[in-house]
């Protein structure tokens, strides 16, 4: 099973990289693009019988390693 984990900074955490990218986009003329937030994306190949089990494992991995719950939240997709 393949799991995809998207890790992003919590809304309450300032993202200076996202802000800098946003400013660069504006300088390129993309005035309508706002609130850019940079995150991380992980692909995991998981040996699990069901999607639910794969999701459970991915969630555990995200909690323990991939995301820091102090500053980040995550979203998981399994296929």
């Amino acid at each position: 099973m393949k799991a995809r984990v998207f890790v992003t900074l919590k809304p309450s955490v300032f993202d200076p990289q996202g802000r800098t990218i946003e400013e660069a986009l504006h300088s390129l003329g993309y005035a309508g693009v706002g609130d850019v937030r940079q995150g991380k994306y992980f692909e995991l190949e998981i040996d699990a019988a069901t999607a639910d089990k794969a999701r459970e494992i991915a969630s555990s991995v995200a909690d323990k390693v991939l995301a820091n719950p102090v500053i980040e939240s995550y979203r998981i997709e399994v296929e």
Partner: protein
Amino acid sequence: MPKIKFAVIVFPGSNCDHDAYHTAKHVLGHDTEFVWHKESSLKGADVVILPGGFSYGDYLRTGAIAQFSPVMKAVSAFAASGGPVLGICNGFQVLCEARLLPGALIRNKDLKFHCEHVRVRVEQTDTPFTLRAAKGQVLRIPIAHGEGNYFADPQTLEELEASRRVVLRYCDNDGQVTDRSNPNGSINGIAGICNEERNIVGLMPHPERACEATLGSEDGLVFFASVVACLASHGALTA
């Protein structure tokens, strides 16, 4: 002078380990050993230093992988038994990732790597690493980091302030904490904190780089002198 044994933890990518070793061993004259991150014992150390650097190349997040190094179990046990632990820069980041200290260090607000001498104000002197300092004392110590922007959620921050666990704050020459004196965007100007029991201290500035006049400042010595005095008074010395 009582003999204290320092342990300096070495992760792959640590690069201030020799600075810390040099300070403890040669400047202060105490027994000091490097402890490789795969070790499970701290070799009978009285005080543990997690040095600065880029453990595991800062992969994933600063300090994120190092928290799983085998030696961290020994560090946690040592800290739980009341042993003094000092995390400097990357060491502070490792302590936060390991949840031995609250909060997190995130990217500097201006995205720049800051390598410069800054002023920090000593806020608390009832930790093993600051007891020889004076409350409100302004120290001149270098910083060198790209991710030193201290963050904690409002509730954690309130707890930290209420329990007097902010140990150092960035300040100006006069000891005033201002936006201008804050090099990285840290919340409340925080440069260093301690745990609830006060024996674990984490700081972004590098005291070990400011312990000899030839380096431009000796203000960092107070952190080392404090822990030596603390251990001497508690009698917790290596036999």
